[in-house]
């Protein structure tokens, strides 16, 4: 009997019990699967240079891409505004997917509504769905703002959000003065980072288009699409508070995706208020912490007379230095001793550990700005970010990456791969091995196939809990990233040296 009440076996050990091993072996013989030797032969071939060349020659098929579609970014950025409900116009299944996806990463509720368009709407357009949908959403969930984006279905049939929302208001779905910003977010253009940009621009356009700008000394910061936003936005705000700067985060999801368990379900929590969003027009400057999440938004802001600046996921020493110096320059506030102390502590930690990091080779994938910021920090540790891949990275990003590599003697053998997917990454890792892989949960399949240890620092992280609650930005965040790298390196050495009387001479107690 494989199972028992006293010691309940979960799936992993249960199916390794002899009864199941025998049953599965019998099933295996009846499945008409390829012979084991054939599978082995093909498996080895998939890790060859020959296969790599075939793999990189494909121009149509995408296998295990590391990107999502526009509306995900749209609902993410909208979640960062106070009591804002995302309303996605189009098929309803998409919304079920965004909600699940965000909940699985943040381990938090994700509340989004759909206009639930079906075949009749595909023929006649989704105006009635918009009219009824806005009214239902407004009546049931009582948001301060409804941010409308689109699924590809509504885009293909050409529904006009501006006209639909105007008509809905005329029909009394929501009060005339109720804020319903919108953005068209076709899934077949760009990725989730594009959707972030479009929706944010939609929200700013909504509040700013008819307003006059009266310049102030405040600054705006746009965090961008970030799986670590809970920890990172809080760290960013802490640094800004320490500097005594007046600022507004344009979209801050840190409270929305980190609500307490105290007996109350908060559908909405925190976020940028409508007042702050309106005021943000007057700011002196807007800084985007992720260039590739905000090209259109920043362009529009610049047109309104603000200074703008781009950063790439401010991770590590120089990434943080650069951001703080820019903030200091814009606001006239000096970088305080407190932050300088934190910087010194990060450098101290780097110096203490440099022998374990120097010369380590890495593969990194994720959104373009994350990959840039991560690679930059790796170079600071003396590591080599050999394979840097962003499925939603373009040629301009590749050039920026190459310039980064050229700036360090550790960058000689590094290469950026824009528009490639994780099946390409598999070929890279199989043919040109590296010590460590940095990415998201899906990287575990690469770890399984090629044995490169995975460090989870990018969205989405489904199979580890709560990492996103701690920052990776700033000097404090740098410390956390450093410890994460080191833990993986030390754990690997321990695993490799743990066999008694064979390898355990190197199973050292002090390192």
């Amino acid at each position, binding site marked *: 009997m494989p199972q028992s009440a006293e010691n309940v076996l979960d799936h992993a050990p249960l199916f390794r019990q002899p009864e199941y091993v025998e049953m599965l072996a019998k099933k295996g013989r009846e499945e008409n699967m390829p012979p084991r030797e054939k599978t082995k032969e093909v498996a080895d071939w998939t890790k060859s240079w020959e296969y790599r060349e075939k793999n990189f020659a494909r121009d149509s098929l*995408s296998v295990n891409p590391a990107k999502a579609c526009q509306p995900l970014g749209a609902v993410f950025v909208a979640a960062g505004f106070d009591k804002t409900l995302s309303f996605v116009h189009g098929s309803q299944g998409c919304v079920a997917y965004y909600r699940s996806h965000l909940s699985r990463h943040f381990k938090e509720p994700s509340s989004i509504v759909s206009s639930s368009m079906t075949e009749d709407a595909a023929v006649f357009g989704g105006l009635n769905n918009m009219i009824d949908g806005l009214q239902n959403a407004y009546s049931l969930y009582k948001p301060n703002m409804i941010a409308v984006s689109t699924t590809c279905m509504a885009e293909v049939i050409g529904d006009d959000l501006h006209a639909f929302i105007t008509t809905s208001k005329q029909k009394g779905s929501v009060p005339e003065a109720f804020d319903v910003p919108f953005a068209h977010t076709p899934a077949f253009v760009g990725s989730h980072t594009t959707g972030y940009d479009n929706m944010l621009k939609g929200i700013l356009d909504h509040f700013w288009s008819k307003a006059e700008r009266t310049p102030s000394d405040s600054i705006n910061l746009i965090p961008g699409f970030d799986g670590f936003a809970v920890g990172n936005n809080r760290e960013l705000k802490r640094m800004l508070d320490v500097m005594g700067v007046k600022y507004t985060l344009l979209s801050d999801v840190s409270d929305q995706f980190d609500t307490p368990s*105290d007996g109350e379900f908060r559908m909405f929590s925190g976020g940028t208020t409508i007042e702050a969003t309106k005021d943000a027009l007057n700011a002196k400057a807007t800084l985007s912490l992720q260039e590739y999440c905000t090209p259109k938004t920043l362009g529009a802001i610049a047109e309104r007379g603000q200074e703008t600046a781009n950063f790439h996921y401010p991770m590590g020493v120089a990434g943080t230095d650069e951001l703080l110096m820019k903030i200091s320059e814009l606001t006239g506030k000096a970088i305080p001793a407190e932050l300088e102390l934190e910087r010194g502590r990060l450098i101290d930690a780097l110096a203490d550990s440099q022998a374990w990091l120097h010369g380590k080779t890495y593969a990194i994938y994720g959104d373009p700005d994350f990959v840039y910021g991560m690679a930059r920090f790796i170079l600071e540790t003396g590591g080599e970010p050999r394979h840097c891949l962003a499925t939603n990275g373009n040629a301009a990003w590749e050039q920026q990456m190459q310039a980064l590599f050229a700036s360090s003697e550790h960058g000689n053998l590094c290469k950026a791969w824009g528009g490639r997917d994780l099946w390409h990454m598999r070929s890279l890792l199989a043919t040109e091995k590296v010590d460590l892989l940095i990415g998201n949960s899906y990287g575990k399949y690469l770890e399984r196939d090629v044995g490169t240890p995975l460090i989870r620092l990018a969205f989405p992280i489904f199979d580890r809990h709560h990492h996103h609650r701690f920052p990776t930005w700033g000097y404090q965040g740098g410390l956390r990233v450093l410890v994460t790298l080191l833990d993986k390196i030390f754990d690997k050495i321990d695993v490799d040296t743990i066999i008694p009387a064979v390898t355990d001479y190197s199973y050292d107690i002090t390192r």
Partner: protein
Amino acid sequence: MSYTNDGGAHKALIEEVLKAYPDKSRKRRQKHLGVAAVDGESPEANADEALGHTECDVKSNIKSLPGVMTVRGCAYAGSKGVVWGPVKDMVHISHGPVGCGQYSWSQRRNYYIGTTGVDTFVTMQFTTDFQEKDIVFGGDKKLEKVIDEINELFPLAKGITIQSECPIGLIGDDIEAVAKKKNKESGKTIVPVRCEGFRGVSQSLGHHIANDSIRDWVFDKRPVEFESTPYDVNVIGDYNIGGDAWASRILLEEMGLRVVGNWSGDATLTEIERAPKGKLNLIHCYRSMNYICRHMEEKYGMPWLEYNFFGPSQIAAGLRKIAERFDDKIKEGAERVIAKYQPLVDAVIARFRPRLEGKSVMLYVGGLRPRHVVTAYEDLGMVIAGTGYEFGHNDDYQRTGHYVKEGTLIYDDVTAYELDKFIEAIRPNLVGSGIKEKYPVQKLGIPFRQMHSWDYSGPYHGYDGFAIFARDMDMAINNPVWGLFKPPWKRGEVGAAE
């Protein structure tokens, strides 16, 4: 187990919750909410004396209202996510933009044995990743190229399915022509599936479309080598979530049957192709696969039988019901299996029932679970306060009447607003639903288990699974965290929970 729920209170609750809706929507939602009533008339009601006889008369399988936060998914989810996705030695292309395949990638825990990326492909995301030019000029050329690239890079794939996303049906692509052409060139099975997300009102139509595509593009297309025995059965509608199908198969084989196909968890194309050669189809998830069973009955004269492998009372009843269709050898086998596992059942109940006795449960799931797991909870002494289906049809609610007791709250395609209010008012000891419901419920201080993915646990089917199920429900309800919600300095307040 004999108990009733307070139907009057549940009716009043429905009225109260509906007040928040605008008139038009209130009228429509009203029809989806109800209370199980005693049913003396329906001939079906007394079909199975062991089960309850109530009537769950709610409207179902119609369009969700816009803007209300339905939990439902789409036809693509029903086809790629449920029916086709688990078939392990085929490549399933998410045909269209990148998102659908991305969000559903590796999320249903359809366990399988194989070398992923070489001879099996379940936990991979293959997509045509549509760009604007594909929408404007059509995607058939790209699809052809993608199929060629799959055949080159994944030579051991036995076949390919094309899982249509929304744009495909809107831009007039002819994926059937592509499938035929590529089948001719490569000799491999290529199945076009018209499961665009806007079709139908939920996942349900996607199941149906996927079933039909098996009928039209797999059955009788290639010669099937097969030596039959009198004991050949197919398990239909078990997706092997957390290993469910394995924990079921072991029982069927122990009683002397031969499982020649498992649809579709851990399945190969060969298992699908040879299914009509079996003697009996055993269907677990009726909702998602009854269509193909009815087809096999009509075309091949193959009977089918519904069964339920959740919880010992239903497992034993199911094993006996299945054995009835065979000779004495199998009947004896069923009794042998039931007797063999009885000590395990007794020990599980002895350990967990005292910790769960009388605890109330609210369910909101899809497929078969809103009714099938009811008796598993009752085996542990727990009671069901409410249940409902994301995408059930009228025949599901009829069958539900055989399971639930009088006064049970019934909710079809429940909205997040309604479910939240129902749960807050009833405050059950446990809620079983999905990932989107999990965190809102837990914030209220109410224990929760995901009943789609088994909350990353499982199997829950079979006797071995029942032990895990019982342990998991105990863990969920009796974890100390629920006692920590209120800070000690607030526990003295009037009305504060201890």
